[in-house]
């Protein structure tokens, strides 16, 4: 009895193992084949707000028809897309065309997921060099920008008028702080921004860091300390609300849209909302410490072509990307996204159609990529330490100098 039951156990185990192996292979072959259908090209984008009937999806289909292939499009949440792409690449079923947030490009390039524009013969000569730089590392370019956005200061004209502030007087940090003081004395609220403990917080702090003359490679410099002290003092003096520590850019915008705040640091994408809220607003480039305009970080996505086993697919993928980034299509796409176009030609068209975009085009031209200057995959580490330092200082647990010194030590 004992021996026979052991035998039965063994056979059962073998059967179970076999069934598992079969299911496992079935799974992997199933997922592999989806990318290999020759007439169908897959495109992943971070625009889930666009459904099947949207102009964006129609544009993708048009470009597909032009290249003689069918398009299978999947939209992801932008924060998800980087990891989804890494997983897909690990399983060998990357999409043919990937549209992805610009700071992720260097990480994906480091992982060996993306082709260079030399490989695919993609023409990137029209794109503005400061925007293109976010997708370059080690002298190679890994895609082309589809549109850009950046940060500036929105101001509420009504609040400033009541406080007796002339916006023309705001030229540097000292005059900005003086304006905030006046606003507070008039019983209104000063400025709101997002200092949350994520990439968003770093994105919002960067214009001040760069405006102070500091560099991402030296977070403990005296300039960087002065930038963080500026924010800290605003909170301490009540010019900025304590809620900035938990604000995303959306919640900080909602505070501004309430109508009590004089300033809000926010992005191009809020332009449509500003009109909807009926605010009498203006836009000011973020000032540098001693005047001039601070460089703001570039936001916006890159169109890239992930590595495929079948390199013959690149020709069609390249046609698709060229179609998506052609002048006419860029204009339409960037208008619906409320982005600034990445080429001078389309930017001119945008400003001609909508004068509100003028300060934004100027801001984008002065903007800097987060992963530029060959920072590449060093940026995510620096950024994480930077938002942690901002959080420690604004919550009062560390002094700017201590926080940035330990941030610099940890980022190395």
């Amino acid at each position, binding site marked *: *009895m*004992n021996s026979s*039951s*052991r035998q*039965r*156990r063994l056979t*059962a185990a073998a*059967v*179970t193992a076999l*069934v*598992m192996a079969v*299911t496992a292979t079935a799974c992997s072959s199933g997922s592999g084949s989806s990318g290999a259908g020759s007439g169908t090209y897959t495109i992943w984008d971070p625009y889930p707000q666009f459904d099947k009937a949207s102009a964006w999806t129609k544009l993708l289909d048009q470009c597909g028809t032009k290249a003689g292939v069918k398009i299978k499009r999947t939209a992801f949440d932008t924060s998800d897309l*980087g*990891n989804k792409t*890494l997983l897909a*690449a*690990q399983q060998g079923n990357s999409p043919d065309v990937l549209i992805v947030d610009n*700071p*992720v490009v260097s*990480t*994906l390039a*480091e*992982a*060996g*997921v993306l082709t260079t524009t030399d490989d695919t013969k993609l023409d990137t000569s029209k794109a503005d060099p400061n925007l293109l730089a976010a997708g370059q590392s080690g002298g190679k370019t890994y895609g082309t920008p589809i549109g850009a956005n950046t940060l500036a200061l929105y101001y509420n004209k009504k609040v400033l008028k009541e406080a007796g502030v002339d916006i023309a007087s705001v030229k540097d940090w000292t005059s900005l702080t003086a304006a905030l003081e006046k606003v507070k004395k008039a019983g209104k609220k000063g400025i709101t921004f997002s200092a*949350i*403990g*994520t*990439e968003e917080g770093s994105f919002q702090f960067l214009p001040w860091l760069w405006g102070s003359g500091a560099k991402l490679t030296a977070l403990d410099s005296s300039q960087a300390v002065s930038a963080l002290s500026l924010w800290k003092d605003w909170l301490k003096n009540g010019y900025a*609300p*304590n*809620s900035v*520590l*938990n604000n995303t850019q959306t919640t900080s915008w909602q*505070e501004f849209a309430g109508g009590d705040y004089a300033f809000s640091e926010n992005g191009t994408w809020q332009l449509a909302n500003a009109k909807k809220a009926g605010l009498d607003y203006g836009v000011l480039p973020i000032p540098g410490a001693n005047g001039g305009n601070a460089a703001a970080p570039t936001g916006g996505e890159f169109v890239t072509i992930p590595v495929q086993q079948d390199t013959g697919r690149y020709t069609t993928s390249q046609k698709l990307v060229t179609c998506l980034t052609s002048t006419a299509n860029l204009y339409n796409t960037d208008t619906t996204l409320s982005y600034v176009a990445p080429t001078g030609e389309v930017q001119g068209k945008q400003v001609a159609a909508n004068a509100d975009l003028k300060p934004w085009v100027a801001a984008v031209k002065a903007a800097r990529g987060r992963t530029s200057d060959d920072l590449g*995959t060093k*940026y*995510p*580490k620096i*950024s*994480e330490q930077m938002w*942690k330092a901002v*959080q*420690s200082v*604004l*919550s*009062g*647990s*560390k002094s700017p100098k201590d926080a940035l010194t330990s941030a610099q030590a940890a980022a190395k």
Partner: protein
Amino acid sequence: MKQTTRPPDLRPAGVRDGAATAAPPPAHSPKRRRPTSTQWAAWAFLAPVTLYLALFYAYPLYRNIDLSLRNYTVRSFVQGDAPFTGLANYRKVLDDPTFAPALLHTAVFTAVCLVFQYAVGLALAVFFNQNFRLSATLRALFLVPWLLPLIVSASTWSWMLNSESGVVNAALHALGIGPVNWLTSPSWSLTSVIIANIWIGVPFNLVVLYSGLQSIPTSLYEAAAIDGANAWQRFWRVTFPLLRPVSAITLLLGLIYTLKVFDIIWIMTKGGPADSSTTFATWSYQLGFGNLLPAFGPGAAVGNLLVVAALVFGLVYVRVQRKQALS
């Protein structure tokens, strides 16, 4: 209650072990040829569960352990050639300045939540056990926190506790108390997420303990009352001891749920400011997905530490159960 559940509990275990160790009762021995087909049928019935367990439990667990033992960079993650580094990830995690605070926060968070959830849940269960008018309606209302999706309740809490425009600070202001930076001050953030989590966990304790109370025969209370026990004595001498088995499972389940609470903390504070509300669960996520450059190895290592912690408490529970059953 204990006596009625024990026999059915023991029997399946006996059957499972019986094939290999204990000889079945002699009545079965003459039918030696037939078991082959029934055994096959038994395996066939077992296969779906085995397959399910293997695919959805064993394999992910194996992958997680594998992840934590290799040095994954984004490149080696895609190529699949990450070098085996033994316990280097665990050492890295242990040496991390975040480790000690995260451990402390996890312990405080779990302990405080459990104590309050259980105490409040038990008090409410005893309260609702005395059937009064509308008690069923009220009890149903108390279940609302449990039914709400976590994203909804956590976002609502984070609005209520907002330092500038939150309703809690407005209420404090009306009482003449200055504003508290619930979510943005390092000394309050952990308290805030604990309060929110207690609110979410009370209904579960209420429901389980309430059903436990229902199974206590009323004759015992009557007997105690005749013997002159007052309400307080009846609770401590009758209710509490008879509720012990139910309490044990409630606390264990609560412990495992609370150890791995992630959504509430992440939505309300992101573990911040300055790691002041970071627990192992949020830290693991932060390492693996909170950054543009994922650190899968250390993230998996922290996750495994959590799994081990939950497992240890599970084993403690099984042990205590066995002791109780034997005595």
